């Protein structure tokens, strides 16, 4: 009986210092792959290593021994004793392992639930396993199910739907105001990590130009260079408000630098083209009243945090839906696994029948002498259809038993009836030879 096992650790079970020790980032993942493959009780295997997790997924006939060997290997690589590793590692078997790998692929087990990178990392791990020919029937199917389930969850639930970082939420808001950000102009006032990150996201959305203003002009020039933009002086801000579409502010100024009256006059000059202020500064750089002006939208850091928080909650709600989809898929997969027990017997049965057919056909054809090709074909077709029809009922019967408890009994009977285990059981007479 084949067992699927997943041994690993993630951001929840292990602190980052320990993760660093185990993560194979420093080692060559291909070497690791080879070592795992070399363990004698392991049949198929896949190794996934990211900054948040390490997973070793494998199938084995000897569950206990294989688990032992893998744990030993991890202890050797990390230099952590097996006793210390105990509480850090999780070991999942069969259904649990299947569920775990589904959840990892669908980003339900991620630090930020719904983040999209993990699926790419799982795909990469699988690709390496395929290169090493260490993944076969069971893990191939498990991985393909993981990918399609992850895709299904992403399209049918909103798990990756809404932004869960402040900068990203700001960009998303921009898209809801302007539609397409392509061709929009951005003004960056002041510098700060979050503002720069938001600017980077905006640039990724093909905005036309980025202008940078700073109290210290040299710093503005520096930043402008970084973003391939243009540096402007602080005094030019008023004029530029007529041109730009998005304003990102994050200065350390104690008073607001964008006033209500200034924006109101600006809007007339802009012919009411929408203007979006993203104010990441504390205290705020844009007077709160500005949000009251038509076609002007102001989001300060608290607003953005509020958006992010509600998005995180939304994702949690969506995760419940996703878990249900995972459950369904786990049931389907375990059902498929059960059919695997029946498959070897059916294959053996078919093989045996085919070899009998071939040898008898050969004998008959040679004794019949010269036949036209049409006749040959007719005789051959006759043998094929007889063999098929005889096998049909037993195969259907075995398939029906695949998820019954009595399965093993019937498999046993079938193997004995058709004498399918001759190789391992030499004492029994071979029916082929006993025939006259």
């Amino acid at each position, binding site marked *: 009986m084949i067992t699927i096992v997943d041994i690993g650790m993630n951001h929840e079970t292990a602190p980052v210092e320990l993760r660093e020790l185990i993560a194979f980032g420093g080692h060559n993942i291909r070497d690791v792959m080879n070592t795992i493959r070399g363990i004698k009780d392991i049949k198929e295997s896949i190794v996934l290593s990211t900054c948040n997790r390490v997973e070793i997924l494998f199938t084995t006939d000897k569950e206990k021994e294989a688990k032992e060997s893998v744990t030993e290997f991890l202890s050797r690589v990390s230099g952590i004793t097996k006793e210390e590793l105990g509480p850090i590692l999780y070991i999942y078997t069969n259904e649990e392992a299947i569920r775990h790998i589904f959840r990892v692929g669908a980003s339900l087990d991620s630090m930020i639930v719904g983040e999209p990178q993990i699926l790419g990392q799982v795909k990469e791990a699988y690709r390496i396993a395929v290169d090493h020919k260490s993944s076969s029937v069971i893990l191939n199917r498990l991985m393909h199910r993981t990918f399609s389930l992850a895709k299904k969850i992403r399209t049918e639930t909103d798990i990756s739907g809404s932004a869960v970082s402040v900068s990203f939420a700001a960009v998303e*808001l921009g898209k*809801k105001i*302007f539609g397409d950000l392509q061709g929009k102009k951005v003004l960056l006032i002041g510098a700060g990590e979050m503002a720069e990150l938001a600017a980077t996201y905006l640039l990724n959305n093909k905005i036309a130009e980025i202008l940078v203003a700073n109290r210290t002009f040299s710093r503005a020039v520096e930043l402008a260079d970084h973003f391939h933009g243009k540096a402007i002086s602080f005094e030019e801000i008023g004029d530029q408000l007529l041109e730009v579409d998005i304003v990102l502010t994050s200065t350390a100024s104690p008073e607001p630098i964008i006033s209500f009256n200034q924006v109101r006059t600006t809007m007339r000059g802009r*012919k009411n*083209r*929408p203007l979006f202020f993203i104010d990441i500064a504390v205290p705020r750089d844009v007077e709160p009243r500005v949000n009251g002006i038509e*076609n002007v939208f102001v989001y300060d850091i608290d607003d953005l945090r509020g*958006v992010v928080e509600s998005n995180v909650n939304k994702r949690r709600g969506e995760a419940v839906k996703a878990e249900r989809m995972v459950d369904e898929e786990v049931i389907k997969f375990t059902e498929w696994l059960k059919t695997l027990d029946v498959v070897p017997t059916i294959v053996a049965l078919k093989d045996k029948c085919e070899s009998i057919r071939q040898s008898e056909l050969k004998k008959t054809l040679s004794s019949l002498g010269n036949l036209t090709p049409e006749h040959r074909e007719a005789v051959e077709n006759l043998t094929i259809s007889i063999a098929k029809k005889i096998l049909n009922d037993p195969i259907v019967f075995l398939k029906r038993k695949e998820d019954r408890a009595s399965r093993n009994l019937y498999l046993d009977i079938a193997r004995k009836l058709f004498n399918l285990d001759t190789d391992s059981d030499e004492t029994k007479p071979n029916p082929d030879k006993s025939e006259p």
Partner: protein
Amino acid sequence: MDIAFFRLTLVLYLIATAGFLIFVIKKNKKVGFWSHRILVAGFALNCIYLVLGYYQLGAMPVLNFKTSLSFFSWTIIAAYIIFQARFRLAVLGSFVVPFSAFLMIISSTIPISSITVKPIFKGFWLPVHVATAFLGDGIFAIAFIAGVMYLIQEHQIKTKRLGAFYSRLPSLNSLDSINYHAINYGFLLLTIGMITGSIVAQGAHGSYWRWDPKEVWSLITWLCYAVLLHQRMAIGWRGRRSAIMSIGCFFVLIFTFIGVNFLMEGYHSFKSLGGN
């Protein structure tokens, strides 16, 4: 025979409505895609129904409230299909199609009454007048709905309460430009409708303008939209203000469309048209 087409059309519109609602609630693109297909199929049947009606009656089937309503909902769907092809905003359908199906249901509940077609309803200009005026109404309905959607979305963004609609509704910019284009084309068709109407009036009554209530209210509607267009183009109105005004204009239009025909005497009233 033709009533079967009407019923089938209604059934398809209702299925499309359900589909569009599921699409917007569940954000299921596949459902949206098929809803649109079903809607187009329903629209094709609706066209057949109208053509049959035209041949049986010998005049545009807008002589009573029942048929007018169903013709109006046809024009809304027609306008939607055109706008969908141009803007690719299936979410618009989630608002437009239920609205149109609703009008269709009202129309279906009104009992069929016999219509006597007066000879003046036949001729070249009358169908042109009816078709352009109604299609203009249909496009204004799109402007109205885009305006409502704009206000919902704008409210969410301004108040920073990003509820269920925020992720489902399109961007403010898309809604505003749909609103703008709809008003442009609607205005053009309404203008043509009024000019051809006066040509018809000249032929039938001997004068281009007779201060009939429908004529007066059409002029009021036309002026409202003209002001809105002027504000947009010359003053630079956009967004919220334009959305609110297009909603206001649409209420005036609905009064012109329905109210005048019921409440006021005149040759446009359903009574004098020959229906009920």
